[in-house]
């Protein structure tokens, strides 16, 4: 298939359809609405389910229901909508059913605004609801990557019977870039063996998040933690640019990583040995890989479109010895390459100055 000029939100919706999404439930919210809009047109065309719920709370519970029945299902929203879905997310996690969520993040807190932001990092990577669990969180930085990760989201959700979040900021949702869509996948002909499909002659299936006894719930938590450990081992994804000989490394994802990429290119022209480390999975976070980088790099800069959320994971990765600085733009502002360049030049000067004094 040839490359087409695609808008992020539309590309994601179409990629989900081609990945075999059978049901979509959602509620409109900027800057994600084109995704829902595309679904509203395409899903009925294909004889699949599209339903605009009366709220995000209803939408997430419809997702829970469809997932429990073994249907390949997703929803999408933006930050305040994702906040409303927290209870349902936790129930889905407690029931171990696969479900895919897309969060096109906007500025917060509160109703905030509709501009691009990475304000939900903590919310989606740390739990995304009450209780001990973590969704897999994928963060694309181009429209092609958003398409590819959308397809992967369904595969991972089903493989681990878990929640997969794809998070992007409004800029990737709204922008257009040439990209190639995958071929249309055939829909599964059978439901998974654990799904609620009407008992018939088989053994009873139970999908629930209620485990009233303390010990049964503790046991379930152990199983969940074991599963998370497997995901942590198998599903790490990240990208590196010029880190081989870097003495200073920028850590960034999504649109912030694109801006950092431009800055790194410019700074390399000035012979400043700077590299870019880009987590693609925000959970599992590449703690170990970033930590190994810290064995030979002592200076890091976390660039985020928020007031400093991923920086704590960067700190945990690189240890107390490394120096970490932060450049962030909360409130829906995309940082400029020039800001990052200025910051890195300053850090590079300080680093050289310190080396001279020592």
């Amino acid at each position, binding site marked *: 298939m040839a490359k087409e000029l695609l808008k992020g939100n539309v590309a994601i919706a179409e990629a989900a359809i081609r990945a075999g999404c059978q049901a979509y439930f959602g509620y409109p919210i900027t800057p994600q609405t084109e995704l829902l809009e595309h679904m509203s047109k395409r899903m009925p065309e294909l004889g699949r389910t599209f339903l605009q719920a009366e709220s995000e709370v209803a939408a997430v519970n419809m997702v829970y229901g469809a997932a429990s029945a073994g249907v390949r299902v997703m929803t999408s929203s933006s930050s305040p909508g994702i906040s409303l879905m927290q209870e349902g997310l936790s129930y889905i996690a407690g029931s171990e059913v696969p479900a895919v969520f897309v969060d096109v993040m906007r500025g917060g807190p509160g109703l905030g*605004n509709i501009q691009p932001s990475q304000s939900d990092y903590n919310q989606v990577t740390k739990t995304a609801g009450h209780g001990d669990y973590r969704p897999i969180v994928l963060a694309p930085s181009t429209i092609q990557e958003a398409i590819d990760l959308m397809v992967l989201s369904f595969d991972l959700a089903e493989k681990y019977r878990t929640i997969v979040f794809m998070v992007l900021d409004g800029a990737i949702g709204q*922008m*257009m870039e*040439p990209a190639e869509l995958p071929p249309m996948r055939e829909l599964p002909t059978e439901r998974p063996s654990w799904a609620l499909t009407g008992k018939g002659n088989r053994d009873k299936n139970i999908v629930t998040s209620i485990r009233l006894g303390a010990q049964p719930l503790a046991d379930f938590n152990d199983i969940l933690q074991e599963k998370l450990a497997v995901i942590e081992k198998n599903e790490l994804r990240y990208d590196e640019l010029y880190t081989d000989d870097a003495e200073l490394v920028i850590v960034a994802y999504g649109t912030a990583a*694109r*801006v950092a990429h431009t800055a790194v290119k410019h700074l390399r022209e000035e012979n400043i040995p700077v590299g870019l480390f880009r987590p693609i999975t925000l959970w599992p976070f590449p703690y170990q890989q970033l930590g190994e980088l810290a064995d030979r790099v002592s200076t890091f800069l976390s660039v985020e479109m928020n007031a400093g959320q991923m920086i704590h994971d960067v700190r945990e990765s690189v240890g107390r010895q490394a120096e970490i600085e932060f450049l962030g733009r909360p409130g829906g502002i995309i940082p*400029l390459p020039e800001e990052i360049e200025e910051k890195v030049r300053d850090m590079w000067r300080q680093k050289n100055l310190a080396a001279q004094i020592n």
Partner: protein
Amino acid sequence: METSIIIAGFGGQGVLFAGQLLTYAGMDQGQHVTWIPSYGPEMRGGTANCTVIISDEEIGAPTVARPDVAIVLNLPSFEKYEPLVKPGGVLIVNTSLVSEQSERTDITIVEVPANQIAKDFGSAKMANMAALGALLAKRPLFSLDDLLQTLHDHLPKRKHHLLEANKLVLQHGYEVGMGTAVPA
């Protein structure tokens, strides 16, 4: 080589489409391209703008502080972007709606009566095309023929009856940019 272009004007002036046309043309020429609209509160004030980047390398940041080219179709856009064009850059001004003049000497300025040209060929809605024509005269990102081909290839079929008029407006805008235009 990377060129950043901001196109700005009132909603309804075809700002977003003009940007998409440049983006398609860049893509058709095998270049890397990005297009990003402003979709924030400024939209609610009736102005619209988009940023297009055309590059022979992978594109990082999709937005810029200072563009190489600004096409300003109304006065608020002139006021906002005229000071921001990079030295050595190009400013295309729609003089049908912008009465102010730029005093900058470090950029190339092309004054195009875009609404008037478009109206002369049938509809003021084609003002965006007059401005694009003028841009190609000063910054040949691709040839006028290539852009016309792109317009033909990507304009929805149901709008193909407008191709001929759009072509004439583009051509005339181009001649204004070249300084060879005779009044229509």
